[in-house]
């Protein structure tokens, strides 16, 4: 162990830099006498360094002479101010520390052995009164540090560097052949394997028949491979429905097969190149290119470490796209949080406040997407109390690749090559972690499951992999996600066999046990099968882009996965058992009947509209959208914000991928409505499919070529009602997909989104189904946006208005025909603006169009009930008067789906009438200001 001294540099800004947002958050936590917080950066350097070298490092590397001042801690007495210091726990990814060592060495100061970073906060109380120690601890725990990845100290902190914590190479034997049922379950629990008794018995019987015991490496690999996260056992389970609703079959042999894949098979779209097989769904784009789309969730990690959880969620889904040999061209994010104004006293034990979760998650998405250079273009933010303890973070990625360039068959003799980041103890058992209910202890136990991403390393992977693909240097590729190398290599070798030498895996720090190396979910790694003669060429590419390459073994045709550590074989599993040995689960489902709840009829229309516009789920999200770079790669044709002042909410986004010829574009949209999920899961599924399709159609996507992705986030499926609602939602997916001829090409489920409070109370999320849609725009120049364009134009309602006031609105069977007619009118150039009507009904939709175009509108509805009623299949469109007849002609067989409501005005006012009475009359200014007044704005500007 090194005895070199540690030097600490404190860097401050020249201008006094109070952080008002932190002061406000501190007041919200009850630390009301805080007046002022300043943040300083800490850099720790270990090494025998001369004063001149320290000065050079401070001046040339660690500070900006224009804006910073600095002091080496040993040179100054800082004890006269109240301070709190925060540093990362050992082993947490710290790219800045890595760069400091690299740059110091480049400057010739090679005595710098290690570096670490931290923050120092200094405080002033109101009226110069110092803060109480309890208050400082509250600020540390609840605002400034996250115990999961950070340490803190009042006063000065000492950095810690990763230490050798384990003896090298220890492999435990797990004697499980003689265990009783109770002992098997205890074993599953103790190792956090999340396996049930049947599964444990299957493992036991495998080892009994082989006449030996399991190693810990083997047991952990089986647990990961058989986890809900990796194998989706609920979606493959045999389910008995205990009551009949709408006459579904009484036994369902797999939700995935029965509903989702079945819909795709029945639709059999020729432009779908790969559905449910690869890491992402793959579609035709043009003659030369294919596009891929995948949406993942990273919910549990985001609950306990919001920044890192969301950050690595983005990184993970980008690797899914790299895993189909595609270049990532767009990112999407849909976020669900608890109410931002929640009383901190109402929080379940050890749950972070929704404000903190929100700001951390958004910062995590921003950090990864912006740094890696992928535009974050599409998304949504939704607030509901049900997400307080279980936020949802859906991260999506779209890729483009030349056709038929994605190889999928490793050959015996191919080398197993790991590219990218090194392996550490981070992210152990993430797959099983995400498959369990959380409780107050989860953050402590699962700390190792959460990581911070390193987008720059992953950017290097994009550079190398796209070039390696073009040069045909590999025969198969997959990402290292949940389960780490065990899952990646295991999956790739499932039809062949593999032999791995664990001691060849490059580690971030020494001391990992073999099972930890095999299971680690360290980020930014990909596994490739590389023919021996191509390894040198790949190595040269890696050198150019500063990506590490490690050869850890070879594929073979043994039908076994074998892992060695030194001279010992620590794992030998038959692939058939590993990948097909899991017993099918048998579950019981009791679908809850749809509720009879009705949409409320408001009394004060005028106020209701303003309230809706400033409702957190409807109000402008521009403050968040602008934190994301949605322009990089230069292909964002319909932007998330649009209109006269670039602030109207687009229904969908359109992209023209760089490097493609012709005028074709991609359209991305989504549908999400957990409120409906609380009342009628089947109806919700139909509604959100319609919403996603409608949003895509609104910007000009061809409704006959839209593909869908499903992401189910649900509670514990062992409860029959919870599973029943899931079955109903899946049935809705099937029926909705068939109705629109829109196949599912990829999907993912995240179950067990529940939090068990210390008081025994369950906090489950509302049933949540995100539908992401991807479609095409034949000519990006023909895109339509939602902002009103010109006074004097006519406003039509398109779509069949339902008479029902059910919370979950019905979906008219003619809706696909309506969308086709609308699309034909768009292709003919007849539609100037188009906006869907969803939350808040036609009134909100009309108001948003006015805001987008900074123009007025004067319309007459069929009845007052149509003002705010939420409907499916409905849009508002703007048509020039001279095109009215041509436009109406497109709907001649759908007359009930068209109504001329009024016109666009240059009088800056929205006026809505019904039965001759004015229901709403608002100035444009009041609409804009209500819409920009959503609570929980971040950051405060």
């Amino acid at each position: 162990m090194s005895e070199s001294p540690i030097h600490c540099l404190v860097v401050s800004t020249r201008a006094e830099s109070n952080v008002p947002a932190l002061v406000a958050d501190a007041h919200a936590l009850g630390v009301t006498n805080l007046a002022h917080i300043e943040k300083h950066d800490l850099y720790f350097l270990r090494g025998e360094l001369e004063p001149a070298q320290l000065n050079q490092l401070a001046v040339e590397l660690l500070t900006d002479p224009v804006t910073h001042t600095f002091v080496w801690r040993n040179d100054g007495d800082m004890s006269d101010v109240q301070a709190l210091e925060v540093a990362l726990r050992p082993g947490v990814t710290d790219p800045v520390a890595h760069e400091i060592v690299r740059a110091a060495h480049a400057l010739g100061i090679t005595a710098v052995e290690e570096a670490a970073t931290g923050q120092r906060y200094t405080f002033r109380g109101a009226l110069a009164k110092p803060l109480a120690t309890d208050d400082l601890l509250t600020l540390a725990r609840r605002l400034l540090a996250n115990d999961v990845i950070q340490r803190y100290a009042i006063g000065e902190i000492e950095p810690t560097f990763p230490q050798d914590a384990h003896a090298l190479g220890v492999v435990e034997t797990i004697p499980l052949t003689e265990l009783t049922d109770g002992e098997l379950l205890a074993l599953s629990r103790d190792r956090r394997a999340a396996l049930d008794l049947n599964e444990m018995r299957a493992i036991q019987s495998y080892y009994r028949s082989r006449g030996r015991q399991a190693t810990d490496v083997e047991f952990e690999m089986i647990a990961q491979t058989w986890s809900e996260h990796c194998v989706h056992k609920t979606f493959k389970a045999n389910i008995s429905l205990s009551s009949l609703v709408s006459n579904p079959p009484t036994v369902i042999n797999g939700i995935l097969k029965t509903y989702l894949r079945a819909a795709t098979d029945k639709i059999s779209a020729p432009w779908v190149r790969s559905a449910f097989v690869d890491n992402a769904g793959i579609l035709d784009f043009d003659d030369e290119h294919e596009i891929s789309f995948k949406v993942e969730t990273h919910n549990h990690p985001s609950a306990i470490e919001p920044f890192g959880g969301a950050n690595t969620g983005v990184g993970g889904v980008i690797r899914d796209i790299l895993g189909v040999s595609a270049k990532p061209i767009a990112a999407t994010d849909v976020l669900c949080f608890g109410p931002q104004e929640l009383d901190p006293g109402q929080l379940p034990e050890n749950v972070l406040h929704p404000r903190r979760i929100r700001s951390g998650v958004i910062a995590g998405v921003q950090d990864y997407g912006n740094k890696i250079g992928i535009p974050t273009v599409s998304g949504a933010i939704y607030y509901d109390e049900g997400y307080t303890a279980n936020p949802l973070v859906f991260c999506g990625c779209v890729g483009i690749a030349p056709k038929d360039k994605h190889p999928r068959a490793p050959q015996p003799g191919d080398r197993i090559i790991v590219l990218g980041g090194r392996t550490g103890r981070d992210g152990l058992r993430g797959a099983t972690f995400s498959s369990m209910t959380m409780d107050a202890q989860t953050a402590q136990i699962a700390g190792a499951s959460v990581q911070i991403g390193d987008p720059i390393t992953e950017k290097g992977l994009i550079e190398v992999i796209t070039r390696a693909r073009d040069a045909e240097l590999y025969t198969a590729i997959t990402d290292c996600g949940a389960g780490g190398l065990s899952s990646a290599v295991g999956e790739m070798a499932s039809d062949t066999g593999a032999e791995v030498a664990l001691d060849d895996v490059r580690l971030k720090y020494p001391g990992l046990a073999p099972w930890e190396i095999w299971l680690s979910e360290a980020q930014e790694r990909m596994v490739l099968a590389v023919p021996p003669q191509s390894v040198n060429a790949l190595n040269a590419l890696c050198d150019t882009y500063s990506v590490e390459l490690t050869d850890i073994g070879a594929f073979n045709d043994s039908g076994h996965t074998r892992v060695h550590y030194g001279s010992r074989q620590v794992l030998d599993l038959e692939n058939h058992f590993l990948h097909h040995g899991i017993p099918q689960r048998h579950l019981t489902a009791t679908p809850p009947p749809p509720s009879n709840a009705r949409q409320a009829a408001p009394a004060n229309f005028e106020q209701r509209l303003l309230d809706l516009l400033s409702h957190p789920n409807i109000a402008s999200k521009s403050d968040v959208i602008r934190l994301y770079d949605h322009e990089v790669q230069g292909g964002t044709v319909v932007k998330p914000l649009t209109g006269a002042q670039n602030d109207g909410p687009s229904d969908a986004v359109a992209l023209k991928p760089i490097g493609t010829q012709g005028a074709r574009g991609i359209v991305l949209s989504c549908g999400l409505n957990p409120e409906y999920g609380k009342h009628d899961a089947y109806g919700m599924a139909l509604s959100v499919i319609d919403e996603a399709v409608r949003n895509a159609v609104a910007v000009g996507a061809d409704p006959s070529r839209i593909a869908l992705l499903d992401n189910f986030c649900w509670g514990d499926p062992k409860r029959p009602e919870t599973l029943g609602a899931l079955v109903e939602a899946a049935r809705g997916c099937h029926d909705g997909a068939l109705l629109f001829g829109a196949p599912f090409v990829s999907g993912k489920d995240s179950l067990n989104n529940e939090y068990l409070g210390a008081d025994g109370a369950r906090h489950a999320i509302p049933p949540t189904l995100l539908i992401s849609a991807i479609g095409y725009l034949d000519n990006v120049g023909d895109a339509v946006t939602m902002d009103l364009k010109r006074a004097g134009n006519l406003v039509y309602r398109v779509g069949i208005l339902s008479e029902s006031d059910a919370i979950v609105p019905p979906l008219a069977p003619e809706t696909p025909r309506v969308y086709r007619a609308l699309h034909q009118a768009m292709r003919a150039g007849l539609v100037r603006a188009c906006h869907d009507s969803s939350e808040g009904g036609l009134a909100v939709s009309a108001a948003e169009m006015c805001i987008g175009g900074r123009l007025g509108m004067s319309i007459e509805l069929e009845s007052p009930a149509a003002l705010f009623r939420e409907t499916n299949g409905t849009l508002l469109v703007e048509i020039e008067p001279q095109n009215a007849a041509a436009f109406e002609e497109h709907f001649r067989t759908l007359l009930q789906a068209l109504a001329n409501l009024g016109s666009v005005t240059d009088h800056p006012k929205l006026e809505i009438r019904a039965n001759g009475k004015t229901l709403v009359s608002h100035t444009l200014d009041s609409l804009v200001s209500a819409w920009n007044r959503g609570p929980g704005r971040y950051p405060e500007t």
Partner: protein
Amino acid sequence: MLPKALILHATGTNRDHDAARALDLAGAQPEIVPLLHLRAGSRRWRDYQMLVLPGGFAYADALGAGKLLALDLNLYFADAVNDFVAAGKPVLGICNGFQALVKAGLLPSPDGTPERDPGRATLTFNAKGHFECRWVTLRAASQKCIWTRGMNETIYCPIAHGEGNFQLADSRDLERLRARDQIALRYARGDGAAAAGAYPLNPNGSLDDIAGVCNPQGNVLGLMPHPEDHIFNYQHPRHTRGECGQSGLPLFVNGVQYAAQI
């Protein structure tokens, strides 16, 4: 012969393809060159007539945006870049590239000296304290800068940065930059009138609405916004309202035409 443009790719560079497309459209022959190929000598500076440092997050912006790329420029390529600049070849730093040029001391050199003069200016955190992506209007302000010379129309293009706030260590340097006509681009209102510091017209709080500065010789330009992302009509945020412009392109055309002459 089309001028060859070297687009420098460092670890974390991400708008290299955007820049290549703009240069291609402007009539250059762009080549994205990994920094390590220059270090290894498999690519040579003298084979190129222009240099572009594109946007991105070189080395993750660790220790300040552009800081570590600046270190590379000064440690490995000091002579090569000096020769390139002294030869009068056009050099353009966009966003992260601008940050690197400033932190390397290649911009703005307020004393008019050709030597590197670091520490005189910086691009620090936006006044709002966070990253921001939005479209801005720029007004060309320098006849000395070969990239903006003769440009009468405004440029409309996006910004996407968290550290674009141009500040000087010595406020008297502002007068020196003005006097030498080194303030190449300013944030402006849509009609071209001065932004006068008003957010979001001036999106980051930059001194004197400065969006871009050039060196005393006028051949090196650094700017925070991304004209390379407005070279097609469909990139304009209001192309569905009949607005268009490709107004990011002329800057590249200027640079390419200048490179073609030398």
